[in-house]
Structures are given as structure tokens and as C-alpha cells.
């Protein structure tokens, strides 16, 4: 599998590339016959291997088809339970919340894709290849699948005297499958038509924007819900029983259409903003003396790079929204908290204000240009104070709201960072502004989290299935990433204490099976917690995953850190950067780039490992397929269909991530050589 877009290869050390870069001459593509001969059957041994491999592939393909289309499969179990598998028994009359959540994610996705994506295109030639081979694959499938079992008038399979299933004749099977023949023909036909239309090589390099494919295919799917009845039943409120009712495809086609429109609408908005920014940067470059300065940063690629600093505010906001969205969607949108306003006005609001004002004053003082050593000591004092509150909480010396402890800790962290913002008024204001924003978030978050949910479902959890899988994965990844980076830095630090602590942590965690950690946190840990401190099952699970994943991430990041040459440290030191600045601006960005492949591997692993949630009693995606559906009275024992279905969903998500990481690698690799 190669990516549709070849990496923009800036020739290393090419001195001042002049004018448009010349693309390398096209390798003359071989006619198919010769290609096959040269690559698949070059000699006797390879021919045998080729034939053997083809046979194995056909056999596997046939098995998969026979399994999928077998009369014994009741796919209706999956179709009926689609909603259950994705959102568990989320109440029907509140379902709009789910759509709002999906919609917000798609808005962000559309905007981000519009602003950032440089997808380029798929060559027409490649597209033709896909279409024709797709058609071919369907045709082969139709041919090799075993003929269907005959059914009698009552819909029962017909058996012969020996009790064997009676199958229709091959010819009848082929005739029965006319729809599939049609599909194969259409796919192949379109491919062939394109082939004939754009016979000459030059025109076959015409590119179709990838965006069309990325948005067009889901669009087709959404459009088809208006024609084809995919789903079967919807679930009645909260009941695990399939009842006849509105067809799922019918009840979701309007929302899905809205979702798709939101996606492309936001993509369009993002694109327009991007194009404007690029145009204005080019205009600025043309008016200034050095016309070359801007815009030709990365020559030789179709889509121009977004100029530096363009849309900076929008990009910050979108990024921030991405980071906050899982929390917001889960605790506010999906959970619908019932806020106790008396508590808000009596406690949270005054406390938040106090932290905001006092914290700002402290930070303002710490960022005076002459705060110097006293400032550093004060920040360390703050840190000790914050740590003390946690110790006190553990021994129950005095009571304090958890949110206050967290706020103290955050203030201490801000205080430690203060020297980086010292002196310049704009920087000081930025730090104080960030602090106020953090206070707002923390106190709002605490209010929302502590408020009870109004969503009523048959289980403790108001979401389940894929949404829990997704939530746990996303939160785990977001939380474990910074911890992993810190662990890696600590493990490579010059401070022996940090090094030892981090090493011990990493080695211990890596030596323990994940499932024991999860069981420990969900079952055993609550027993050790002091009175009054509880930990929700889901939070315990996320904690377990996070601690586990952080250890692995740390090792991946450490690999990256070790690949940074000493000269980078020395150069950063020589220009006078502090250790923090050196780490943040020079060392980490480079080492994270190097570790993209293992990091994404870890992310994918985490996503798949969330299936262990089923073992500690949460209703995740796997549990839906493995035990919930097979226990429904209509679908007793129907398990394999659901497992195959969720495998496909897991695969699609994982594959998308791995593709994305490949693109990311190419993209950040640009500046590296």
C-alpha cells in the first residue's frame, strides 16, 4: 500500500533550486501482460510461489464470502443492534444529544481539514486501477462463492434424505447473483471507460482531488440511506429487546444528511479561510521587495503550504476545541448534568473568582523583570504548598474541596513557568490570561462533573458500546501523552532522582499485564482510598489505561530523544536558551517527529486494548457483540456476526490512523533533511 501522494522530496543540499522544480521523467509503465510476466512469473520457482499464493488468497476470500453470505448468518442481529452497539441504550427522546456530539466533532473535523489538509490528488490512472480491480474482485467473488441453499415456501432450508443441505445449481446461483454481476460490471465499466477516454499517458496523470473521495464516499453512503433500507429496527427506550418499529435507516437519514452537510460546509469554510490567507500572503510578498521570500518555502507540491502565522488565532482556537471537546461532549452534551445552582453561587463562583484574582496577582508579581531568585523561590514555595494539600488530604488532616487542591497545583505549575514570560508586558498578560482561562475551565469542569446526570438508562453507564470505547481511547491517549513525555524526559534527565523514579515506574508498569492494572484500579484501588474519596468505574479504567500507556509512550519518546545529536543541545545552549526552552523548542519537537511511527502504533494499540473494558464489567464495543447481542431473546447465541462487524469497525479506525500517521511523517519530514 503506498500513499496516493508521493512525498515532496526536497533534494538534500540542493543549492538554491531555481524556478519550478522539474519532476523526474515518468517511468514508462509496462503493459499489464509484461508487468505480470516480469514480476509474478519471472522463473519457475517464483511462478510456483505466485500460483500458490494466489490459491491461498482465493481460498481465504472464498471462506470469508461463504461465511458472510451463509444462510446460517443472521446479520439482522447486527442491523437491529446498530444503535445499541454504538450508543448503548441512550434514551430515544434525548437522542438529539448524540447527534449534537457527532455534529460538533464533524464541525471541528471539517474546519481542520479545510485549514490544514494538503491532500493533493489521486491520479486518474490509479483511480482507474482501483475501479477495475474492484470490479474484478467482485466478479471473482461471485464466481467462487458456493451456491446458496435452497429454501422451501416456509423459508426453511431444504435438506436431502441424508440431512445434507441442498444447494442450487451453479448456473442458477450465477443468475441469482445478477445484482453483484451488475455491480462488478459497473465498477469495471467505469474504470475501462476512463481508461479508453484518457488513453494517452500524459492525460492519465490528471489528478482527482482526494477531498472529493474523502467527502464523496461518505456522501454516497448518506445519500443511499434515502434509497436503501439498511437498518432494521430501532430500539425502544432503554430496552434491550428488539421490537418492530421505525427502520433505523429511516430514522437516521435526516440527521446523517445534516451531519454530512455540516462536514462539507465546515470544510468549505476552512478552505476559503485558508485560500484567503495564502492569497494575502502572496500579495504581501509581491508588494514587498523580496518577492521570493514567502510562498516558495516548499516548492514543487500541488497544494501550497499555509503561510506561517496565517490564521494563527483560528488555528489555536480549533486546536483548543479539539483538546477540550472529549471532556465537553462527554460531561456536558451527553451527560446532561443537573447543576446545583445554590452550590455554584455559594461556593464555586466565589472560590473561582478568588483563585482567578489572587492567582493573577501572584503571576503578575512573579513575572516582574526583577523577580529573579526570589520569584523562583516563591514558585517553589507554591509547589510545596500545593503538594502539602494533597498529603493532608491523604491523611485527612483538614478538609478542602478537591477542586481547590487542583487549582493550587496548577497555580504552582504556572508559577514555575513564569520566568519564561517575565519582563515583556504582552507576555505577562498572556500568562495571566491563560491562567484565568484555566481557572474558568477547572471550576466549570468541577461543577459539571460533580452534578448528577439526568440521563436514565438501564445500566449505570449512560453511554456504552463504541462510544465508551472511543471515549476511553481518546481520554487515555490525551492524558498519557504528556505523562509519557515527562517520564521520558525524566528518564533521560541528568538528575539521578528523576532518572531512577522514572525508570522504576516504566519497568514496573511494563512488566505487569494490562488486565491486572485494570482489575487493580477498578476493584482493589477503591478499597485503599480514604473515606470520602471515590473513584468511578470508568475513571478507574481510564486511570489504569493511562498509567499503562504512559510507560510505553515514554519508551517511544525516549527513543526519539536519544536520536537527537549533541550538537542540537549545544547550539541551543550557545544561543542562551534555558533548559525548559531548549527542551520545548528544540529537543522535543525533533524527537517527537522521529517517534511518530511508534507513537501512532501505541495509540492504535491503546484503541484496540480498550476491548479489555468488557472484562472489568463495562459495556464496551466488544461486550456488546460478544455477550449482549447473543443474550437477546431473538438472537440467542448470535455472536460471530457481531464480532466480524466490530472487527471491521476497529480495522477501519486503526487503518485510518495508520494512514494518517504516514502522511504526518511525510509532512513533518519536510523540514528535516
Amino acid at each position: 500500500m503506498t500513499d496516493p501522494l508521493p512525498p515532496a522530496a526536497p533534494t538534500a543540499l540542493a543549492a538554491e533550486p531555481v524556478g519550478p522544480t522539474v519532476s523526474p521523467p515518468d517511468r514508462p509503465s509496462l503493459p499489464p501482460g509484461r508487468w505480470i510476466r516480469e514480476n509474478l512469473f519471472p522463473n519457475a520457482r517464483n511462478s510456483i510461489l505466485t500460483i500458490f499464493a494466489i490459491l491461498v488468497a482465493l481460498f481465504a476470500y472464498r471462506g470469508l464470502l461463504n461465511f458472510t453470505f451463509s444462510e446460517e448468518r443472521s446479520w439482522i442481529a447486527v442491523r437491529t443492534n446498530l444503535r445499541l452497539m454504538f450508543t448503548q441504550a441512550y434514551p430515544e427522546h434525548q437522542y438529539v444529544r448524540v447527534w449534537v456530539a457527532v455534529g460538533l466533532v464533524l464541525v471541528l473535523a471539517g474546519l481542520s481539514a479545510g485549514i490544514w489538509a494538503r491532500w493533493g490528488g489521486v491520479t486518474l490512472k490509479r483511480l482507474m486501477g482501483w475501479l477495475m480491480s474492484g470490479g474484478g474482485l467482485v466478479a471473482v467473488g461471485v464466481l467462487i462463492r458456493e451456491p446458496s441453499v435452497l429454501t422451501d415456501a416456509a423459508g426453511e432450508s431444504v435438506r436431502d434424505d441424508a440431512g445434507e443441505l441442498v444447494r442450487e445449481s451453479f448456473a442458477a446461483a450465477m443468475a441469482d447473483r445478477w445484482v453483484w454481476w451488475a455491480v462488478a460490471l459497473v465498477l469495471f465499466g467505469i474504470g475501462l471507460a476512463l481508461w479508453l477516454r484518457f488513453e494517452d499517458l500524459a492525460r492519465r496523470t490528471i489528478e482527482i482531488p482526494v477531498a472529493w473521495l474523502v467527502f464523496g464516499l461518505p456522501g454516497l453512503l448518506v445519500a443511499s440511506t434515502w434509497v436503501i433500507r439498511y437498518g432494521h429496527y430501532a430500539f425502544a427506550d432503554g430496552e434491550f429487546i428488539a421490537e418492530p418499529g421505525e427502520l433505523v435507516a429511516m430514522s437516521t437519514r435526516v440527521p446523517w444528511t445534516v451531519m454530512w452537510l455540516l462536514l462539507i460546509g465546515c470544510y468549505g469554510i476552512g478552505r476559503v479561510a485558508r485560500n484567503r490567507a495564502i492569497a494575502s500572503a502572496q500579495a504581501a510578498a509581491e508588494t514587498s521587495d523580496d518577492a521570493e521570500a514567502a510562498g516558495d518555502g516548499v516548492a514543487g507540491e500541488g497544494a501550497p503550504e499555509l503561510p506561517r502565522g496565517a490564521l494563527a488565532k483560528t488555528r489555536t482556537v480549533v486546536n483548543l476545541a479539539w483538546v477540550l471537546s472529549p471532556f465537553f461532549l462527554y460531561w456536558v452534551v451527553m451527560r446532561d448534568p443537573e447543576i446545583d445552582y445554590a452550590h455554584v453561587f455559594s461556593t464555586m463562583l466565589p472560590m473561582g473568582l478568588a483563585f482567578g484574582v489572587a492567582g493573577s496577582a501572584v503571576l503578575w508579581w512573579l513575572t516582574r523583570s526583577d523577580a529573579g531568585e526570589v520569584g523562583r523561590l516563591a514558585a517553589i514555595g507554591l509547589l510545596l504548598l500545593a503538594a502539602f494539600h494533597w498529603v493532608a488530604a491523604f491523611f485527612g488532616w483538614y478538609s478542602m474541596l478537591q477542586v481547590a487542591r487542583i487549582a493550587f497545583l496548577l497555580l504552582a505549575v504556572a508559577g514555575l513557568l513564569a520566568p519564561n514570560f517575565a519582563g515583556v508586558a504582552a507576555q505577562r498578560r498572556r500568562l495571566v490570561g491563560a491562567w484565568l482561562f484555566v481557572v474558568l475551565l477547572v471550576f466549570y469542569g468541577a461543577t459539571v462533573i460533580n452534578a448528577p446526570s439526568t440521563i436514565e438508562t438501564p445500566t449505570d453507564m449512560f453511554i456504552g458500546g463504541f462510544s465508551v470505547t472511543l471515549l476511553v481511547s481518546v481520554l487515555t491517549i490525551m492524558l498519557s501523552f504528556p505523562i509519557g513525555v515527562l517520564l521520558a524526559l525524566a528518564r533521560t534527565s541528568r538528575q539521578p532522582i528523576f532518572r531512577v523514579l522514572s525508570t522504576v515506574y516504566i519497568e514496573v508498569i511494563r512488566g505487569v499485564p494490562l488486565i491486572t492494572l485494570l482489575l487493580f484500579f477498578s476493584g482493589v484501588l477503591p478499597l485503599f482510598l480514604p473515606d470520602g474519596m471515590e473513584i468511578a468505574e470508568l475513571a478507574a479504567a481510564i486511570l489504569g489505561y493511562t498509567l499503562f500507556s504512559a510507560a510505553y509512550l515514554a519508551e517511544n519518546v525516549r527513543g526519539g530523544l536519544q536520536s537527537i545529536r549533541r550538537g542540537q543541545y549545544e547550539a541551543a545552549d550557545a544561543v542562551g536558551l534555558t533548559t525548559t526552552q531548549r527542551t520545548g523548542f528544540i529537543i522535543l519537537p525533533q524527537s517527537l517527529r522521529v517517534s511518530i511511527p511508534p507513537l501512532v502504533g501505541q495509540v492504535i494499540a491503546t484503541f484496540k486494548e480498550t476491548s479489555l473494558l468488557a472484562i472489568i464489567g463495562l459495556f464496551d464495543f466488544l461486550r456488546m457483540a460478544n455477550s449482549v447481542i447473543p443474550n437477546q431473546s431473538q438472537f440467542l447465541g448470535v455472536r460471530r456476526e457481531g464480532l466480524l462487524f466490530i472487527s471491521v469497525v476497529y480495522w477501519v479506525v486503526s487503518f485510518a490512523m495508520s494512514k494518517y500517521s504516514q502522511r504526518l511523517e511525510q509532512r513533518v519530514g519536510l523540514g528535516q533533511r
Partner: protein
Amino acid sequence: MARAARERSEQERGNGVADKGESTMSTQPAHGDATIAVSDELAARDDMIVCSDVDKWFGDFQALSGITATIKEQEIVVVLGPSGSGKSTWIRCINRLEAHQSGQIIVDGIELTNDLRNIEKIRSEVGMVFQQFNLFPHLTVMDNITLAPIWVRRKSRPEAEELAESLLERVGIPEQAQKFPGQLSGGQQQRVAIARALAMEPRVMLFDEPTSALDPEMIKEVLDVMEELARSGMTMMVVTHEMGFAREVADRIIFMEDGEIVEVGTPHHFFTEPAEERTKLFLSQVL
């Protein structure tokens, strides 16, 4: 442009350059056989770098022994010596990339100790150019240059970018600002590295074999920049094997071997009548 600046600065520096090699030597005793020779005019200037009796060990191996030297303001000192003689180690001690173990190093009146604040201060006063350029590959040329002015000198971004543009102009590559280091030739990269160091507006520039990793045709473009810098009145300490540069530009040449200063003198003295046998041997090998 460059020529005009050169002439102007030459006038400003007056006799300092013109007298090179002909003025009388005032000598002062130093550690070992080394003799620090300073012309009268130079001696009158303020001290910029003072090293006295500096020792440095790597484990059991003594890389520097009893280095004693004073470098005056606006002076150009070239350090010569065979490979492994401790030139890099010395120059790196001056901005504390290496810590010396005994003796004293004072840069612009600040003594180098383990005190972090002193180190930070000196590093923003002393620019350094490395043999391997050590540009930050993930940042554009512009960001390479503006990073430290913004975060260490606390300049605003527009201010820093303006400075960077003028520096890129000065080193002769104003059109490369938005490129990444990997897209530049070695000579261009080294010139960016010089611009990056200059962006901190240092009082002293240290060069550790700045042309040794370059293809021959690129050496001159870097040496030209350094020469221009020298004429503009920068204090410079240069480790190099470019004898032409040493002869033309240096105020003094310090010859090192085995971690010691063997001989010090003006280029004229050094290339025509070296006093030490070891110096003669070295010169016979490289010339």
C-alpha cells in the same frame, strides 16, 4: 555594500589593522613556554576574555593545562594547532559548553562559575559557530535566527524578524528566510549559523573550525562573512586551519599543542620567525 562597510570600519579601527605585525611586542611571562605578545595599541584596550591557568580534565586525561591568555576587545585571535590539541575544548570552555576544573575564565567582566545566572548571561554575550553548523532542522531559517532573540532577549517578533532580515542580508542570503536548513547548501547553512549567533547581538564570537565541514568552493563565502565581521569591530576567537585567513585577518595567533599554549604572536611573527620547534614542525606540515 560590503566593501563600503569594510572601508568604513577600517577607518574606525584606525591603526589597529594597519599596524598588524609591525608594532613592537610587549611580552609577559605565562605558563609554560607560551609568551603572550600584545601590541601597544591592543594592550591599551579593555580585556574581553581573560583565562588564567585554566585546567580541564576528561576523566584522567588532561585536555587543557594551564591555559593563560587575555583577549582584548575587538581583537581577532586565531587558534591553531594539530588535531586533538585542545582547541575546541578551550573555546567551548569560554561559553561553558564544557566546565573547566581549575583556574579562572572571565568574559566581559563576568567570571564563569557554576552559578546559572552567570552562565545564562555569558551565553547571551558570546556567540558560537560550530563546525557542523548545528542549525535546528525543524525550524525555518527565520525561526532559527529569531528564536533566541524572542525568548532570551525578549524582543517582539516583528523586531526580531527585522533584525533577522538585516542579518541575512549581511551574510548574503536574504532570499532564504523561509527555507529549512536541509534545503540549503553547507556554505549557506554556516552563514545562517553565523546570523543566528549574531542575532543575539553578542560581544564576542567564537568559531570552532567553521569551514572544516565545507566543500572547497563554499569555504570562501563563509570566510568573507567572517572577514567582514572582523572589520566591523567584533571580538573574535577563531579555530581554523585556513592559514590565509589567519595571515590576513588575525591580530594574534595562538598555537596550541597537547592542551598547552605553545606560542603566541602576530601573524607576521608567527609565519616568518616562529620561535618554537613544535610550531615550526606544525607549520612545515600545513603550509
